[in-house]
């Protein structure tokens, strides 16, 4: 029986976990570092404890023991896929809310994961340790211990392979302390489709359908949705069965995600398994009604999964947009500042998982993800319109954001058609910039009404002031 859980994370996910824990009657203990001493997540917990780093497993376990937490929830990122936290918990007799250490370890090693999956009959991409046949090019050099695009190189022809492998190995060694790389077939127009799986300690594994995560910038997802417009009921059944087989192959415990590449011909290949709660888990919750955090906690307590495969059903359509403190126009550089105005959208079918409020500081210390805006509607078209409306209504000033950029993607013809792949943003560079040259006269009025008498010098990037035809001279 779990009485108190230490949430070893920060920001929106720490708060989202605390919501479910409070609703379950479980005390939520939190952590904060010095830069986070005023962070919203610290203040949203039943109690919060100061630590040096979210990356120090021993410190986290020590806090858990001191405050009487008998379980640790790692969230995503940080130590969620590191064996250091799960094994330290194990040694201390604390429940780690996630899979066994051995599962985390084997899935963290891309080559071992490939071997296990192949043995379980899961389709994987062709791969080589060195020198693939010339006919297989282009190929991708990937880090064995990698993720997030680090230690990855696209190689167009055999003559470039050696240099690419050396560079990738150097990068991988620095980033993951593991310089091993391997070579994989490159898929030209890949979609990124992942399957949510849930396994319990009684040997049950079910899948909760797919999420399409093809809209990415810098190898990071920014818009996710479910159902995927590319997945037919037959493909869903096939990929679901594949994901369940993958999870069963590692006796998976808790909530996890099996990521696939879907190629232009509709073939799917195992990419990797994320052994934790996914950032984009809310779209699955919105369409299936499952509370994945509640399910994680119940499974960690030894309960069987609270639903059967046949009980699950996808209802309607859900889209998530990740709200980042960044400037898409300037190569997605992160921005920092203090949030002066924060007015999130409301209304039917709108969910906000949020780590900030008015007055919050966004600093350089951590990931610039501030919030996730999730909508649900009966159809994909209605969900798109709802997301447009919600992004339009979202006011967040004091730090620059990707809100309008997300609005342009959501409103684009490519997105509406559902014809997505991971290069959509690269192909549509025009989406990066707001339509230039049009400054509504009302914006000039607004600025003028608010401007203080003092003057400062700098230059503006509008090429003209747009005026509607409706003005009357009086």
């Amino acid at each position: 029986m779990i009485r108190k859980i230490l949430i070893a994370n920060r920001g929106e996910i720490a708060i989202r976990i605390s919501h479910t824990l409070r609703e379950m009657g479980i005390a939520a203990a939190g952590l904060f570092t010095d830069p986070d001493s005023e962070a919203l997540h610290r203040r949203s917990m039943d109690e919060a404890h100061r630590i040096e780093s979210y990356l120090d497993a021993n410190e986290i376990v020590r806090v858990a023991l001191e405050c009487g937490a008998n379980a640790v929830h790692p969230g995503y990122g940080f130590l969620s896929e590191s064996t250091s936290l799960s094994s330290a918990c194990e040694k201390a007799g604390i429940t780690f809310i996630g899979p066994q250490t051995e599962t985390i370890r084997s899935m963290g090693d891309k080559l071992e994961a490939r071997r296990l999956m192949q043995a379980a009959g899961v389709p994987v991409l062709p791969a080589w340790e060195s020198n693939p046949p010339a006919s297989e090019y282009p190929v991708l050099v990937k880090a064995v211990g990698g993720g997030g695009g680090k230690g990855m190189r696209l190689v167009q022809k055999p003559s470039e392979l050696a240099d690419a492998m050396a560079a990738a190995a150097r990068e991988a060694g620095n980033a993951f302390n593991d310089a091993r790389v391997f070579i994989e077939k490159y898929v030209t127009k890949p979609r990124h489709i992942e399957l949510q799986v849930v396994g319990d300690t009684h040997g049950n594994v079910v899948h909760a359908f797919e999420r399409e995560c093809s809209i990415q910038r810098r190898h990071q997802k920014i818009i996710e949705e479910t159902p995927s417009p590319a997945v037919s009921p037959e493909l869903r059944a096939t990929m679901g069965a594949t994901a369940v087989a993958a999870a069963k192959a590692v006796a998976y415990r808790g909530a996890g995600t099996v990521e696939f590449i879907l190629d232009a011909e509709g073939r799917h290949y195992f990419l990797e398994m994320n052994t934790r709660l996914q950032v984009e888990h809310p779209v699955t919750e919105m369409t299936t009604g499952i509370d994945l955090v509640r399910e994680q906690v119940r499974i960690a307590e030894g309960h069987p999964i609270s639903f059967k495969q046949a009980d699950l059903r996808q209802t309607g359509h859900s889209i998530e947009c990740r709200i980042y403190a960044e400037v898409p126009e300037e190569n997605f550089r992160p921005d920092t500042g203090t949030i002066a105005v924060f007015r999130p959208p409301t209304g039917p079918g709108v969910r906000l998982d949020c780590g900030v409020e008015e007055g919050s500081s966004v600093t350089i210390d951590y990931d610039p993800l501030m919030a996730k805006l999730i909508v649900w509607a009966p159809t994909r078209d209605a969900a798109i319109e709802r997301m447009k409306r919600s992004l339009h209504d979202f006011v967040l000033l004091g730090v620059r954001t990707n809100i309008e950029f997300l609005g342009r993607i959501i409103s684009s013809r490519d997105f509406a058609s559902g014809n997505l792949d991971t290069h959509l943003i690269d192909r549509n560079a025009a989406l990066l910039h707001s339509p230039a040259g049009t400054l509504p006269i009302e914006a000039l009025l607004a600025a003028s009404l608010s401007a203080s008498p003092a003057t400062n010098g700098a230059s503006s990037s509008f090429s003209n002031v747009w005026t509607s035809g409706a003005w009357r001279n009086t």
Partner: protein
Amino acid sequence: MTGRELHWEIDGQDVAVRIEESTAGGIFRFGEQNIPFTYISRHRHGGWVSVDGKPHEFYVLQDRGSHTVWLDGRTYRLERANKGRPSEAAELARGDCRITALMPGRILRIEVAVGDTVAEKQILATMESMKMETSLLAPMAGRVAAIHCRPGQIVEMGELLIVIEE
């Protein structure tokens, strides 16, 4: 009604506007146009104005002379014009080439030393922000004239880091 004149720099031009307002609204004069507006309500960072019968919600944030305007779901950045005086930016933009921080963050490594000759696109330094690394590249071939930062230093966006001279 009280009146005031403001200057905005739009597309390099000094654009003058005039506002004559009472508490309820007023007239916005811009070029030859006279645009009546009425306040629906005001709040700490902006308000709602009605122009030609349509309500417009706005928020304005001032930060070091720069104005961020949120209006009806879009954000605009505006700068006040600096009547007479040449702008600081114009003063600096001649001669050598100044590498500034593209984002706030931490300097990880500096790959060059003062006096080094550098090629175009050569990596000068690497910085990190929010767990992402960016390399600062030489925008032109030249010689490192000055280095204004050191590894581990936290820098603001726009802070001068390195100067390259031809």
